[in-house]
């Protein structure tokens, strides 16, 4: 399928440079895409992937360099122009309207007209046809908001190709999809590829990149590292090129955790756990469950999206109310009816939805770091400015937040750095239980390793952690105990001794009750 000899590139970007105040985001980067190929753009957070994409889609103007499409020079001033030129984008955060129907979302802005109005029947028919082409079984008349994120993602792609795109950019399209949904997405991508569409696929999942990509370009710190055909670069080599250093830390964490799992299990079996939930549930959200988290224990939550893993975390974190059962902290019954009351018990919940439920984007890094601590002290007792500066400086250093400027607005940081700032916010209150819902989603390998190492270290110091991740390897690597969820129900609770990813997957997939 992929072309053996290089034909003329469909898109060619040469010597692209873009600067923001104080940052050189892209430095003379070359990038090209061929028709009928899946091209993966690789790099850590802040490597310049998003900036390059935004240069290609007209969101940012370029300071210098040229872009050609089909050999013709192309000046793109706005996303609309990019789309007219046949360059469509599906962003990581889905930019669709949940309160409109699937068909309306696909056809928005290009509905067929009739007597000056919209020909609704035809609109729906066209959307339906497109969905059939993609072999997606979605009712075009249903509200978009009623579907899962995964389906919304596929609808976004349907929308993107509805304009007969020649270049399709998928920015982290799989970050919230489960295995089946990824397979479905890849099926769609392959059929688009066969039709000669050039696809730019950005993902942090190496497995997926190796499965779908034909070619990849690696960026680091705004500069080009190189362009490779997928078969000529080994994974470990790729990772090394992306982060520019070795990552032995991960293996280290792995062995340490396993050794500890046995230790903690024997030690805490008799003691009163830090948190114990019995029969806690919430109608329409999660079936009653029991869970115990001991001091210094990392409990991993495995399960698919929508399995109830986030719902469980939200209840313990006080983000949602319960309507049955009892939660005990160190043996005493507690009502964690709000995040505030949970925080009083030093339980911090870091949401999976960083943008909506995490960052305060127009406040500074410093404000964001001290927010939870300040909220806990009340508005009147302001944390003295010097203490704030100390806190910010120490976390910026400890977590390697970039840029290392406490007064930078959080909106100007990359996703991974925003995540680190959030982590700092929770760590600043010295939590006894830290609930991390997908803390490493959409984060590069280096930052991921740092966050994992941090979690392991904190647990060794006695902090309890409830860790949620769609990546089972990560859950297995960090957790002492693993709770498996399926269909809004807790189905298993096992010590992480000789458990393998395959076993967990088996549990998640099994239809029978465990």
């Amino acid at each position, binding site marked *: 399928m992929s072309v053996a000899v290089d034909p003329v590139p469909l898109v060619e970007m040469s010597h692209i440079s*873009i*600067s*923001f*105040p104080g940052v050189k985001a892209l430095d003379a980067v070359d990038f090209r895409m061929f028709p009928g190929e899946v091209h993966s753009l690789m790099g850590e957070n802040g490597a310049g992937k998003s900036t390059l994409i935004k240069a290609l889609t007209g*969101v*940012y*103007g370029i*300071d*210098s360099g040229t872009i050609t499409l089909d050999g013709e020079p192309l000046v793109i001033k706005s996303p609309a122009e990019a789309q007219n030129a046949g360059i469509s984008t599906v962003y990581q955060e889905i930019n669709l309207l949940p309160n409109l129907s699937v068909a309306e979302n696909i056809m928005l802005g290009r509905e067929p007209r009739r007597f000056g109005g919209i020909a609704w029947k035809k609109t729906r028919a066209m959307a339906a046809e497109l969905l059939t082409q993609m072999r997606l079984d979605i009712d075009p008349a249903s509200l978009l908001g009623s579907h899962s994120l995964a389906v919304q993602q596929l609808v976004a792609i349907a929308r993107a190709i509805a304009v007969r795109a020649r270049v399709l950019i998928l920015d982290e399209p799989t970050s919230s999809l489960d295995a089946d949904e990824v397979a479905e997405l890849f099926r769609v991508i392959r059929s688009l590829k066969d039709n000669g569409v050039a696809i730019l696929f950005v993902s942090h999942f190496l497995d997926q990149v190796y499965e779908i990509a034909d070619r990849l370009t690696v960026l680091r710190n705004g500069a080009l590292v190189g362009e490779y055909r997928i078969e000529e670069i080994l994974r470990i080599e790729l990772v090394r090129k992306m982060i520019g250093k070795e990552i032995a830390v991960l293996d280290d964490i792995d062995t340490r955790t396993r050794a500890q799992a046995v230790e903690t299990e024997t030690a805490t079996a008799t003691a009163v756990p830090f948190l114990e939930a019995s029969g806690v549930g919430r109608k329409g959200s999660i079936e009653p469950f029991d869970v115990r988290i001991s001091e210094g224990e990392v409990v991993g939550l495995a399960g698919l999206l929508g399995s109830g893993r986030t719902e469980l975390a939200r209840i313990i*974190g006080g*983000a949602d109310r319960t309507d049955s059962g009892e939660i005990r902290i160190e043996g005493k019954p507690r009502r964690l009816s*709000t*995040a*505030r009351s949970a*925080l009083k018990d030093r339980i911090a*919940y870091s*949401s999976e939805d960083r943008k*909506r*439920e*995490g*960052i*305060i*984007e*127009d*406040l500074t890094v410093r*404000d964001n770091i001290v*927010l*939870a601590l*300040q*909220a*806990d*002290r*009340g*508005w*009147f*007792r*302001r*944390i003295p400015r010097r203490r704030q500066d100390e806190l910010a400086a120490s976390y910026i250093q400890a977590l390697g937040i970039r840029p290392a400027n406490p007064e930078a607005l959080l909106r*100007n940081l990359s996703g991974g750095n925003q995540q680190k700032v959030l982590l700092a*916010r929770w760590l600043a209150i010295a939590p006894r239980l830290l609930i991390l819902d997908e803390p490493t989603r959409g984060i590069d390998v280096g930052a991921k390793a740092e966050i994992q190492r941090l979690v392991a270290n904190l647990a060794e110091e006695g902090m309890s952690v409830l860790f949620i991740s769609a990546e089972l390897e990560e859950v297995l690597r960090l957790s002492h105990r693993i709770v498996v969820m399926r269909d809004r129900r807790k189905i298993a609770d096992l010590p992480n001794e000789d458990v393998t990813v395959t076993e967990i997957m088996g549990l998640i997939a099994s239809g029978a009750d465990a």
Partner: protein
Amino acid sequence: MIAARLRDVFRSRLIWPVIALVALLVTNVIKSPGFLSIRVQDGHLFGSLIDILRNGAPIVLVALGMTLVIATRGIDLSVGAVVAISGAFALSIVGDAPDPNDLGVVLGAAAASIVFAIVLGSWNGLLVSVFGIQPIIATLILMTAGRGIAMLITEGQILTVSSAPYKVIGGGYWFALPASIIIAGVMFALVAILTRKTALGMLIESVGINPEASRLAGVSARVIVWTVYTFSAVCAAIAGLMISSNVTAADANSAGLWIEMDAILAVVLGGTSLAGGRYSLTGTLIGAFVIQTLTTTVYSIGIAPEITLVFKALVVIAVCLLQSPVMNTRITKMRMRRRRTPAVAPTRATVS
């Protein structure tokens, strides 16, 4: 660092309202050269500038409360009605008292008005923060009903009461300055200190920028929202005392009419976004004075009453356009181009 910060502030947010203010003042000076002069008469300061400050005091107060409300993503349309209620309530108490000239009676009446305003503001806060009604609708209720309440208090009449101590609030002098200026100034300073020396300002902005994330970080968003609406009503009530005192009358229909619009405008001119979040009290202060100076200018340069509103609108449109993000980018670009001619590496001026 401080210089750089000042430069940023003046480059982006406050420069246009300040220019508008200066331009209006210059216009007045050209029209009547004695405009800027301030003279002392009977130990009191007199002059057009003092008049602007004094007449602007109610707008400053109302806009002060409005700034905090807007910073939490809200809006308070009921301030005009609260102005009317507070004036009517205080004057009716003073009028019914055996001795309207007794200082204790006046202080009691003023305190009662403010307490009443706390109740009214709590009502707004309750609707917005507990019941989650959209602020524009929640405060619209009191905006309409409030005039009715004021009407009930005045029994449909225009209350006129002569009380020397009451007259002081809006028309009297303390330390050679009009009392209203001092009251507004003290309130402004209080809020500035309270929001910046405590964490209140940061928490208000945090709630305004992202309420859900703030809630999960343990911020009592509900209490904060409730408080700002209550505070806004208190500001409006004090403004109501001033306005009714200045004319020694309480008119349920016209007291504080359209003041909510002036206040919102002052906040917006001052660079605080209606989308909530970051706010600027200094900006609001400047915005309020632009609006008051505009009103004064209209009279002093003799613009025909028919086109007064049109003239006001034109000035406001001009300032708003100059402040708009599009113009901002253009101006920065122009500056960059001019600076770039001596050949420096090209840099991007703005980040979206």
